[in-house]
């Protein structure tokens, strides 16, 4: 138990249960979170998410952070039921810290991927019951291979590597096609884009998703609401400030929006 540095096992020994399955009430709409994306750019990986949380046709919240920093080198972006997703993020954050502190070494990148996969698998009954489906993207810097990587999951816990990009959430079908187009016929592939250009593309992609998906929050300049964009490089995770996003949005995105 403790000697293996497995925090989730420790929690379970104390009676903790993740995602208790319940019957989704047909008349009750659950809060869900919407468009997230990640793609490789010149220096690493960019992960972005809109800020809207909805329940049916109601906007529950417009300041949701769906791009969660799990540790200095990894990020989990969430789509699905935020209650379960935030709980998973908290378990992962503690698991990675607990492993590092007990075993006196960092958990490998593969180990981190597996940890999320295990949580999703444990959550299957709740996901299938309709009360706790989470479809995350996990991105991070793999120190062993000296490369930033992207993985996406299905609700059963299967993990797939997003070689160039990954998307999830209700607005993802809109931007998946754009990402494919940009990466294949754009002036340069996504992985060659410098930071500023990658950020501009992320803002344009999320704005496009919001155009066609009512459950994805667009940019609200009056309220100063911009997406959450995090960059993962060999130096760790860094968040783009609202000031930077505002400047890029006004100079290179807002045309026609």
């Amino acid at each position: 138990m403790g000697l293996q540095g497995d925090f989730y096992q420790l929690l379970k020994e104390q009676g903790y249960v993740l995602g208790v399955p319940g019957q989704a009430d047909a008349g009750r709409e659950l809060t869900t979170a919407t468009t997230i994306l990640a793609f490789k750019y010149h220096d690493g990986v960019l992960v972005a998410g809109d800020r809207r949380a909805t329940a049916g046709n109601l906007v529950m919240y417009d300041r949701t952070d769906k791009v969660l920093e799990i540790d200095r080198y990894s990020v989990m972006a969430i789509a699905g039921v935020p209650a379960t997703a935030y709980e998973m993020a908290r378990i992962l954050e503690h698991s990675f810290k607990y492993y590092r502190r007990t075993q006196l070494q960092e958990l490998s990148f593969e180990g981190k991927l597996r940890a999320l996969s295990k949580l999703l698998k444990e959550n299957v009954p709740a996901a299938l019951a309709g009360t706790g489906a989470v479809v995350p993207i996990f991105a991070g810097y793999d120190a062993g291979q000296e490369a930033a990587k992207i993985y996406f999951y299905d609700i059963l816990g299967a993990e797939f590597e997003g070689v160039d990009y990954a998307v999830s959430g209700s607005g993802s079908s809109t931007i998946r096609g754009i990402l494919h187009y940009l990466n294949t016929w754009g002036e340069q592939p996504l992985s060659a884009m410098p930071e500023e250009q990658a950020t501009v593309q992320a803002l344009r992609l999320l704005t496009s998703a919001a155009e066609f998906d009512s459950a994805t929050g667009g940019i609200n300049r009056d309220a100063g609401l911009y997406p959450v964009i995090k960059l993962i490089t060999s130096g760790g995770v860094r968040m783009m400030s609202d000031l930077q996003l505002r400047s890029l949005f006004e100079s290179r995105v807002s045309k026609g929006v």
Partner: protein
Amino acid sequence: MYEEPYRWVEAVGNRRHYLDDQFKTGAPVVGVTYEGGILLMTMSKGTSKLYEIYDRLALGGMGHPADLEKLRFNLLEMAHVEGFNRSASDVTGGRLVKYGIAPVIKQAFEEVFKAPFIVKILLVELSQTSRKDGFLTINYDGTFEEKSEYAVLAATSVVEQKMVEYLRQQDHVSLEDAVGGAIRTWAVGDRVQRRALEDGEGQNEAKADSDQQGTDSEALYAHLRRCLDEKTIECAVLDRHVPGSSKYRVLTADELSAVLPKDLRPTRL
């Protein structure tokens, strides 16, 4: 036979002598605040004696490595479960010690048919706001003391007192000051311990070492240079300025070389 009160008291007394013997050759540990956080310092022969416990908590230990590991795991489990179930702010050194490991250590010490923990622990806690950083020392019998600004671990309380007297007079504003002061304080303690061993009587160390001789910087550096032949300097900090929630980091060899007192810099590290 231990059911008679006198026998039990005698057994506990014997146990105290046994444990005091175990620490005679142990490496002291020094903890001191500086403007950017808290420094923990010791010298070791390979096995680390400084550890990260939680976001703002770190541990320095003396004693048997296996016992130290067992208690370290206890602390880690308690801290992480509490941090998950409540919040990181609820994981405090005081709670972990008073309601966590101190009673366990005391019980092991007094159960004379079982082995006691051969450990002394220094738990340091970086507060949310500076000025309230905390230090907790726990003895092998479970007694604990709360201190502020600095604390040390050594073989006996007499040695610890000499170290604290020296440390009190040292500047510890910058990291460089703190490292220099901590290393010299370590040398004060180690010299007194070694002299006590050579004299064969642990109780005479106070008079065996005149204050002037014992705290002269040149003599301390000479002693440290001798120690460096078989040990390495270990320094870790709870750094208030590190981004993110985890504040613990070990000073790398390069960082350490840059802040070591000049008299020690040419040595291998």
